[in-house]
């Protein structure tokens, strides 16, 4: 895939009034269909720092949704639920800008809202080499253990946990 010049995007919140566009992006990017609960949670939380659209030339061309999850010992992690960019706009560093903005959001609030957050994590289907490379070589994520049968309806159903220590 050719990595052409960067297309600078702007970010915007995901709300009740435009959540349908999130559905469109996810439908176009992912082989899995997400549950209503996922969309409900994203809309209700209304947290532009963690869930956002990427806009280019007035269109929503990508989206990233993350949330704070509890881990052992009263600690927390930033979990990336979805990160997708429409096919026509890939290879233009838009995904990079989305992830970077979440990192930046963490940095700005690491002593406040995210004081208990130690790492960022996500799951990637084991066959998705592009994604694995994206996170590991660009952002320094570590490939962790394989989780078997994570997915119900796609093949292969297994995935890797990718994580990065933030402190």
């Amino acid at each position, binding site marked *: 895939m050719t990595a052409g010049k960067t297309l600078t995007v702007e970010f915007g919140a995901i709300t009740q009034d*435009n959540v349908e566009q999130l559905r469109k992006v996810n439908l176009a990017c992912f082989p899995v269909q997400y549950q209503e609960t996922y969309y409900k949670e994203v809309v209700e939380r209304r947290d532009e720092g963690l869930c956002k659209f990427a806009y280019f030339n007035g269109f929503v061309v990508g989206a990233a949704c993350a949330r704070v999850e509890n881990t052992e010992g009263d600690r927390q992690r930033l979990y990336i639920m979805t990160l997708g960019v429409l096919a*026509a706009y890939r290879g233009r560093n838009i995904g990079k800008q989305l992830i970077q903005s979440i990192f930046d959001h963490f940095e700005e609030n690491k002593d406040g809202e995210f004081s208990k957050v130690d790492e960022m994590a996500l799951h990637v289907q084991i066959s998705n080499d592009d994604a694995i490379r994206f996170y590991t070589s660009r952002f320094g994520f570590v490939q962790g253990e394989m989780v078997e049968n994570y997915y119900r309806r796609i093949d292969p159903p297994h995935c890797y946990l990718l994580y990065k220590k933030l402190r």
Partner: protein
Amino acid sequence: RDEAHALVKEGLMNDMRSHVCWHVYGLLHRSDRNYNEAIKAYKQALRIDSDNIQILRDLSMLQVQMRDLPGFAVTRHNILSLKPNGKINWLAFALAKHLNGDLRGAVSVIDIYLGTLTEGAPELARGFEASELALYRNKILAEIPDNYKEALDHLSACENIVVDRTSWLMARTKYHLNLGEYAGAKGAIAEMFRSGMTENYIVHSMYMCVLDSGLCKEAWSLPGTRTLASYVPLSQEQKEKLLEGYKTDLFPDYGFSAAVQRIPMNLVEGDRFRNSLDVFVRKKLVKGVPSLCLELSTFLLEDRNGRYQLLDDPYDVKRHPTFKLLVELVDGYISSLERNKKLLPDDEHEEPPSTELWTWYLRAGLHELAAEYSEGLAMLEKCLEHTPTAVDVYELKGRLVKSSGDIKTAVEILDKGRDLDRQDRYINNQTTQYMLEAGMESDALNRISLFTKHEGNPEANLYDMQCSWYELGLAACYAKKELWGKSLKKYSAVVKHFDDFNEDQFDFHAYCVRKVTLRAYTEVLRFEDNLWEEDYYFRAASGIICIYLHLFDNPSILEDDKEPDYSKLTGAERKKAKAIARKKRIQAEKKEAEKRQKEAESADNGGQKKKGKASAVDEDADGKELLKKNPLDEAKKFSAVLSKHCPKRFGTWVLQYDVAMRRSKILLALQALYRMKSLDDNNAEYFSRLVDFATKSDNLKDVSPGVHRVTSTEFQKLLNHKPLPEFVAAAAGKAKEDKQTSLPLRAAIAKAIVKTKSDSLEAATNLILNDGLDGRGVDVDACRSALQTLNGFGSESA
């Protein structure tokens, strides 16, 4: 209100000579909108106390509201003589003279007033009121025929006190041009451009009057972005002259202006035009301009009768050289982008993905102009696969699907697009409109309610906001479903809005004179005089007329609720019929009561949450009262208004004809035919009514022989003095020859052929089928009605 009436009447009975009572009586009538009664009451009061300024003032406002202009002038004169030290009285008197057409008189009144002011008085100094008064006086001077020199001199004299510099410059330009002095206008035009009016197309047109000052009159009535360059065919030298002007005068200082870039494109030809078009389109494709196709369609001009017309029939569009050029250019961009992501093969850098999206979108738009719906939809499918979040694409896709005949699918598409951005009021309105057209009125109400106030009934809110487009759409929806009462109710709501528009001017009569905004005020009066010309009023009135005519033609529609004729039945049948009728009535009343109870309850529940006022329950929600009116009388009423105020619309005369024929007023019908002919003699509606008149007019009763004689002689002229079958055959021959003949006209002629037996059934059918789809006027509605016509001929031809 009834109490007030009763009390006032009592007061009058006690003392007929009390001017206060009459005054109050007049005020009461005024608030009831019985203006004529109010004027009578005021005049009575004045007979008793003729110097009462308050009464005179109230009377004058009513007189101008009712446009009793001579009366208004008299009243204002009286007031002025009673109180000459009031500035307002002078101005109002001048206004009265102006409205009555006594322009010199108006000017002299203003001058006398100005004469009463001492030197150095604040009213004479530069300021808003002095400025407005001066410009008003100037405006009156300009209205005097051929008086531009005096107006111009006055303009120069008052330059220092005028604050509205823009109006001053515009007026100066106009006067110079009307006097044929372009040189004088030049300075003013330059100053207007300098002050930021570069996007004002009228100023550009006036700039172009350097070619011929005589064109100025047409120049400032051009709408929108039309200029002289795109309206009047110019010679090569004229174009070169203007181009030179734009290059040297305007481009250096105003190169950023959209208008300055766009207007010269109408002046170049051949390769220069191609290049400028290429640059123009590419720039907008990269930026991403949804209205680009609409903008480009303004280049599709054709010289008709010495003036350019914009083409919109796909037949004409497809054949226009600029359209072909555009298609060539855009197809070139598409293949170039596909190959290596560049708009032009020799471009330096690649385009972002959005450019390709906009290019496909533009191509789909061009397909729409040419009525190539499947090709357009294919293009849009590519767009949606590329960027499924682009709301504009859904809108165009829905429009194409609608144009190709499937309104229900179009609604689905549009609704999907709307769902992507629920804050977008525009797409919500579009969805609502489409739903109304598809007969889905409850869904439509659902959608539009997303944007109405939170409290109260949304339909009531739309009524209060005078949302005419919705009410017209809903009325048309009901009419299609044959819910005549409800439809009439909605059309009448729009008519009521217009009555309110007329009514609302009342407060301005006092206010504007006080604030000395006399120019704007006279414009408002002129607007109100022409209020009934508006589009929405025409649609409402014609909707009402069509329904009433339908009810007149089919009286059985209304008879379902009526009691059967008992005298014709035997005793036992009568008893049975009465029992059935009573049962039906009780059931209907029960349903009504239940519904009203439910509405009241829900209004209560809603009212408990917020402090909104409970909306008045509409007594006659189904419009039953409207159905009871005499249909022909109502139709005649509206038709008269239209004929008086909308004479330039073709539809007005179609309606006048239809109403007149049913009333046996053949002179009116004939007048309508003549008017139709002068407006558009190729129109299918005109043709079919010609045939109708020829066949019906002899058999109409209630027509005096004298009238018959006159009409038959005049009517023969319309038929070119041929007998009807020959006329029809001639028309058919002409239609066959001319491949461009519109589909509706073909269908109308075909029907006439069958009716008058002027040719075989086969000939009639062939007229429609051969080349029918290749001419003008081919759209879904035309095709549907042509198909209906063919079906009417018998199963063979269909």
